[in-house]
Structures are given as C-alpha cells and as structure tokens.
C-alpha cells in the first residue's frame, strides 16, 4: 500500500465562511493523503471543521457564504478544485460517495427505496431495464438488505434506523466509488446496530478496496475501524498518525485530554479528566495555537505563533510547541 501513489491528496485546504461577524476559518490549512483500501478517521468536536473538510472534498460547501479559498484536492492526480461544476457532478456519486449522519433526512421520504437506488445507477452507469434492476438488487444485497421484490417498493418510514442507514450506504456504494466519505454514519443508531453496521462497512471496504474517510467524534469508533486517525481542532489537523501510534503515544495535549476523558467500561471509575473551557470561536481565533487557552501544557510561545508540524515518529505528526520542545 505505501508504495503505490495515494488515491487522494489534500494539500493545504482552506475553506472560509464570510459572515457578518467576520471570516470564520472552518478549515484552515488541512493536508492529508489517503491510499486505496485505507480508512482515515477524522476526529474532533463539533465545530472543529471535520464536516466542512468533507464537504470541501466534494465541493458542496454552502455558497455564497462559504468558499474554498485555497489548497488542492487531488483524486488520482486530478485536481477536483479545478473542475467545472458539470465535471464535478460526474465525480460525485461515481468516484466519491457520501453517507451522512441521519438517513431520515438523507433519503427522500416520497420515493421508494428502489427508485432512489436506481436513480443513482441510471445516472452514473447509464443502465436501463433489467440490467438496471439487477444492479440495484446487487447493491442492496451487498449490504445484506433482504431483497424480495416488495422491498424495492418500500418507503424509508417503513424501515428501521439501521436498515435506512444500510439503504443510504447501498446508494453510496452502488456505483463502485473509489472513496467513501462517511460523516458520523452511526450516530443515530443503537449500540448493537452500530456494531452490525461498522462490521459490515469493514467487510464491504475490504472486498472493494475502497478508501474511507470516517468522520466521528467517538474514539471508540476510531479504535474499532480506522487504520489512521487525524485529530482536528479549530479547523486544523493537530495530530495525525496510525491508530495504534496515536492511542499508544498521543503527542498533542488535546488528543491526550480527549483520550483521558472517555469513561471506561472497564475497571472502576476514577474522576474523569475534564478539558476546561470551551472550543474557541472560529471567527475570533487567538493568535498562536487555538488550543492554548485550554491547554494544561501551555508555554509562553503558544500564544504567539501556531506550532510547526513535527514528525514524532514515522508517519505520526503533531503540531504542538510542548511536544517539539521535548523532541529537540
């Protein structure tokens, strides 16, 4: 995997929102790469820029308030930011597919399941008639949706939450995309259904060699499914590395704090470590490191400049003055 060129390269992506209160830098210089067959988890709290990063990749940032103001997004070497809207429409759904948090709102309540899946296949693959139907049945079957003919005529309100999420994943995967962006796919699901879905996702991914960007705020999901993880804070990636490295040697104080404030299902409860304060206002970011006001390891330099990105191990980077001071 490491030798082949990456499927997706994101370089210094910047997406800003221009509001009355000022410029909100929702994504501010995000860079990462992703290989085929790999799962990258984007973790962070609400407002850290995870979802806007994903929307920027498929150029669905709500305009005119939001705009991608810089950077490059290369899918197989082609810059997506340079494509025309018509070209971009052919990329979305066919090469990059998305699964969103709430299948209640991402599925159309007035159309049957069959219609919604076949719409995508018809548009992107140009199939008609029985070959279209075969493809739809195949797409549903891959996500273990029981495909009796009655199923294609059902509406989303007749399905359970887990089934709805499978249908929207079936739609996403029906055209054999190269990259799947899953934005909090299990947040609205129950625990046992979440376990079912995550296992199914892993299975489908392995069989199709699919690259997955998994957006989540839950480190449990990262531990269960991700190969690599990028931790976001205030529009920037503050730490990125293989899942095992990041869990074993978290190198940014924010990551450390996040990992420590998880209640354990294991041994007896000790007081949870809190992160004091609130996430920053993105329109009024402090100069320097945005985490500094909440950081337990703050240095004087933290208030002056954003820390450089430092490799703490091979393939494991962190942006923190305290970490870089310890490494020099």
């Amino acid at each position: 995997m490491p030798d082949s060129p990456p499927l997706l390269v994101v370089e210094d992506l910047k997406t800003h929102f221009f509001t009355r209160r000022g410029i909100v830098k929702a994504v501010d210089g995000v860079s990462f790469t992703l290989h085929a067959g790999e799962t990258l988890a984007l973790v962070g709290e609400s407002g850290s820029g995870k979802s806007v990063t994903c929307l920027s990749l498929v150029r669905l940032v709500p305009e005119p308030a939001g705009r991608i103001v810089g950077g490059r997004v290369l899918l197989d070497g082609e810059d997506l930011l340079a494509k025309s809207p018509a070209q971009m429409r052919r990329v979305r759904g066919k090469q990059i597919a998305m699964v969103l948090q709430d299948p209640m709102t991402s599925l159309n309540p007035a159309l049957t399941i069959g219609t919604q899946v076949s719409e995508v296949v018809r548009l992107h693959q140009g199939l008609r008639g029985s070959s279209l139907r075969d493809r739809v049945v195949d797409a549903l079957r891959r996500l273990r949706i029981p495909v009796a003919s009655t199923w294609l005529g059902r509406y989303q309100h007749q399905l359970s939450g887990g089934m709805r999420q499978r249908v929207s994943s079936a739609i996403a995967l029906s055209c054999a995309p190269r990259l799947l962006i899953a934005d909090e796919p299990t947040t609205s699901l129950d625990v046992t259904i979440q376990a079912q879905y995550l296992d199914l996702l892993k299975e489908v991914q392995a069989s199709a060699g699919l690259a997955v960007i998994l957006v989540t705020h839950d480190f449990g999901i990262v531990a269960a499914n991700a190969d690599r993880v990028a931790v976001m804070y205030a529009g920037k990636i503050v730490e990125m590395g293989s899942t095992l490295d990041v869990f074993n040697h978290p190198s940014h104080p924010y990551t450390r704090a996040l990992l420590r404030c998880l209640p354990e299902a294991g041994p007896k409860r000790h007081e949870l470590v809190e992160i004091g304060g609130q996430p920053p206002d993105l329109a009024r970011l402090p100069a320097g490191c945005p985490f500094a006001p909440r950081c337990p390891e703050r240095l004087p330099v933290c208030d002056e400049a954003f820390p450089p990105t430092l490799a703490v191990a091979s393939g494991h980077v962190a942006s923190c003055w305290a970490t870089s001071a310890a490494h020099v």
Partner: protein
Amino acid sequence: MLQAIGMKKYFPATTVLGLGRARGWIKALDGVSVQVAEGETLGIVGESGSGKTTLAKVFLLLERPTAGSLLFHGKDVRTFGRDDLARYRRSVQAVFQDPYSSLNPRMRVESIVAEPLPRNNGMTRAAGRERVAEVLELVGLRHSSGTLYPHEFSGGQRQRIAIARALVTYPKCIILDEPVSALDVSIRAQILNLLRRLQEQLGLAYVMISHDLAAARYLSTRLAVMYAGKLVESGECDAVYREPLHPYTQALLSAALPLHPSMRRQRIVLSGEVPNPMSPPAGCRFHPRCPQALPQCPSEEPTWQEAKPGRLTACHLY
C-alpha cells in the same frame, strides 16, 4: 424511596391522525418493576424502543400507567391528594437529553431556573432569587448568567442550566434521560463529573436512562437492562458488567466500542432488529435474535427470578 411495581403502559395503535378505533396495542412497558433507594443511581440501559423513556415519563407522572403502581416512600402515588402530588413533583425532577429543546429560548435563565419553584408558598421573591443564584453557582455557572438567554450558552452550559432547574426545588431524585448524549466528548466528561459531585454533595438519587453503556456505568450503582418493554436483567452495576447473565446483556456489552485499537475483538454481533412493539415475539421476546435460544424459548415466557444473589434475570438458561 421510589418504586415501580409491575408497571405497564400500552399505547393504542390507531389509524392516521389518531382517529378511529385502536387496531392493537403498543406495549411500551409490559410489567416492569424497579426501585431506587436514597442516594443511589439506577442506570436503565436498552436500545431505542425498549421502553426506557416511557418508564421515565411514568416516574415523572407525565404518562398514566395502564397497570401497575408507583410507590413513593411506600405510598401509592394514585392515592395522593393535591399537596402530596405537589410535593412529589418537587422531589422528583428531570433533566432531558437535548438542552437546545428543553429550555425555552424566550425566557431568561433566571426565570427558567425559577420556574419549578412553588408559587404563593411563603417564599419571597428575594428568597427565590437567592435560591436561583445558589443553584447556578452549584452547577458552576457565573452569577451574572441569570440575565442571559439560553442561546448565549454552549451545549454543555445549557445542560448545566437544565440541571440547575432540576435542583432548585431541593429534589430527592432526578430522572436523567440521556443527559450527555447530545454533548461533545470533552463536555460530556464535565457534565458527568458535575452530576457525580452533586450526588455526593446533596445525597441525590438518580435514575439514569442511557444507551451509552460507558456513561451509564460511570454514574450507576445498580443497572437494569430493558428489551422490548421488559426488564431482562438487573443487579449491582459492576457485577452486571463483570458477568452479564442474560444473552442480550452479553451482546449489548460486547457491542460497546473498544477503548483502544488493541482491544478490537470478536463481538457478539446480533442479527436482526428490535422487535415491533405491536406484535412482540411469543415466549421470550429476545428469542429470534438470541444466540443461545433453547427449544422452550419461542413458546414459554421466562420468569423474572433471582439467578444469583442480588442478580435478577428473565431467561430460561438459569
């Protein structure tokens, strides 16, 4: 202190718009008995549709049970007169899941928090204001926040306001319906610590309803597991986590996400879905999904019995 015995709540399933006769009954609660002692936390876990929230509403007198009785300090709530009911409502308060919809956006925080206080009850305005300031301080909000509106606060602070409102009447018990599910991870820890601290300080009892097993574990002293309107298991919290008896509890605990990538393990992944509450399966309601089902499970309903000291479960395996 608070005890529900054989609680049942059936909702009529009607045609569109609630007109017409009932086509059947949705058995949201079907014979649930739990109790909460002073100062303890009863965790109620289960998936959506298991009846957790209906049980919470019964405790809060927001739903009238179809059958079964609710005892408060040994007395049946149905026999309560006006004064007793008012006292009950002051003693049993609630914090809901979503602090964005549980706080009135057009009221100032001080009025929101003061709202449960009894009117014309000897408490002067000044005393009321003092009490509001006191509880705001208790939950870690600034004194001046009383004059602000809910939209001026973040999610975690709003949940603090909701907790302050629950505390203002000196309650004995707070029903926490998914108190941290809508919050960010770092804020979740703050709220869980706050709830723990308040419990120690004020000797509160909690009923914590949650689908988040880790959060439930953090607060609970006893745990009750619900499935399709029935209890499947209850017991001391640590014991249930250490050695779950019912196959559903086992599957639920094993479906919890790992804390570390090295802990990825074989989960018991349940096939199928939570049953339709209108026509739950005969016999044990869990049998269609149960990996350890016995021949009698589809026909005979298991009895609720003590399988081990202090451990109750409804399963034919025991």
